[in-house]
């Protein structure tokens, strides 16, 4: 049980994230097929497999996040590539100089990543996007709690946020073209975001 996110824990996060994405690739693509174009699983699998291949042994969290961001941007394509890319690039900026992030430091870092997604994609909560999982994940963090607990709470909030996208009518991304027909399905990006945060909680737990 880690009490700070250092390069080792973060590397473990990405490995678990890649494993989940690979295992759930078909499921994510199916979600995307229902209200998008059916490639979200394949996009992320391509991206996270490239991340694992590229990662090596980064000197600090900033380099690690930057590598992840650049790799996702260079391999994912689609909407989620630049969005998850920005997520990690903004976290890289926020951790500049730190060797490890404890429960007190992490909220600022995750918030910076989510702000990067919002800055790129201009989505608001309720638009039925990954922001609907990411924003609650930030809000649920507790700087005073043990790291494992706050990450578990954050992951649970992300999962609930993802589930809460089901009834929403999409206003951003491909699903928005469907109008009312987009309701009744979970958002694929919110679902993958919840998976990422669950992998983080596991890696640190």
């Amino acid at each position, binding site marked *: 049980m880690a009490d700070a996110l250092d390069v080792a824990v973060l590397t473990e996060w990405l490995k678990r994230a890649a494993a989940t994405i690979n295992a759930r690739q078909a499921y994510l693509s199916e979600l995307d097929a229902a209200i998008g*174009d059916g490639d979200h699983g*394949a996009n992320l699998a391509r991206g996270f497999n490239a991340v694992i291949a590229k990662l090596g042994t980064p000197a600090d969290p900033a380099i690690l996040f930057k590598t992840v961001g650049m790799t996702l941007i*260079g391999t994912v394509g*689609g909407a989620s*590539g*630049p969005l998850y890319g920005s997520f990690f690039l903004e976290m890289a900026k926020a951790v500049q100089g730190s060797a490890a992030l404890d429960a007190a430091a992490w909220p600022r870092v995750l918030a910076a990543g989510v702000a990067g997604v919002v800055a790129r994609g201009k989505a608001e909560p309720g638009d039925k996007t990954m922001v609907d999982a990411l924003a609650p994940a930030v809000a649920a963090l507790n700087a005073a709690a043990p790291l494992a607990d706050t990450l578990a709470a954050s992951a649970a909030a992300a999962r609930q946020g993802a589930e809460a996208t089901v009834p929403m009518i999409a206003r951003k991304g491909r699903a*928005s*073209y469907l109008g009312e027909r987009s309701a009744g399905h979970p958002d694929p990006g919110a679902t993958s975001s919840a998976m990422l945060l669950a992998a983080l909680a596991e890696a640190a737990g």
Partner: protein
Amino acid sequence: MKKLINAPDKVVDEALAGMAAAHPGLITLHTEPNFIVRADAPVRGKVALVSGGGSGHEPMHGGFVGRGMLDAACPGAVFTSPTPDQVLAATKAVDGGAGVLHIVKNYTGDVLNFEMAADLAKEEGLDVGAVVIDDDVAVQDSLYTAGRRGVGGTVLAEKICGGAAEAGADLASLAALCAEVKASVRSMGLALTACTVPHIGKPNFALGEDEMEFGIGIHGEPGRKRVTLEPADRVAEMLMAPILADLPFKPGDRVLLFVNGMGGTPLIELYIVFRAAHEIARRHGLTVARSLVGNYITSLEMAGTSITLLRLTDAMIAHWDAPVLTPSLRWGA
């Protein structure tokens, strides 16, 4: 899934290799990252036009690379926008010193990836402009949404801007022309069958024998609504009515009428739709000054059609008529 492919993850690379082998004098293929440039790129002193998007829409965009149209195209994975490094590499490869215009279809993925690439290119000192095409009237436009998709109007914008670029237009006036085309063009599409993305292996939606999907995009996604199968004349009405109302097109307007196939619909059917659309345009008082009929912006093997109507100016007509020498659109050269 019945396709003439070897493996889902080889589709794009092998199709690009085949394209390069088939058109050696016209285009050059770059790999890692993938992009296609016209054989004589960069053209000194000419503004370069770069477009791109997911694969699966062939001939768009790679088939439109060549003299008088695009300088480069960036193909992503099937139905997945290209990455910024592709767009950046293509932008640098075709820059002839007069700047580069990105013609982008309005999809979040395309827009974000092209934006990132443009930012990077600008950091490297290149002069880059961008126009986002959003001609699909099936989608309600709004400040709060992703907005309308870019569909058939993209092909027309690429040809017209390509003609103007060849004639020496500078980046600002080219961007203005492209914005004018964007403002003057409307499209609407409909599917008789879904299509199957190779790595998914089954269609994104299923249509019954007497159903059509109305208001589709070009990514095999479901459309605005499911309706019953109608005769071609009625289909043309259903597509033309919202198009005509939207701009709106007015009696006396000269238009380019583009009847596009989604990939699996043969020419004989497209001509039947064209006949009906042409008649509707005529009844509406429009003059169909130019026409295009064929499979130009497709969704893999989807059966269906889209109609695009562009209100023409004299300048647009001149640039449309100008010589073009690409794998899939060619005249006067």
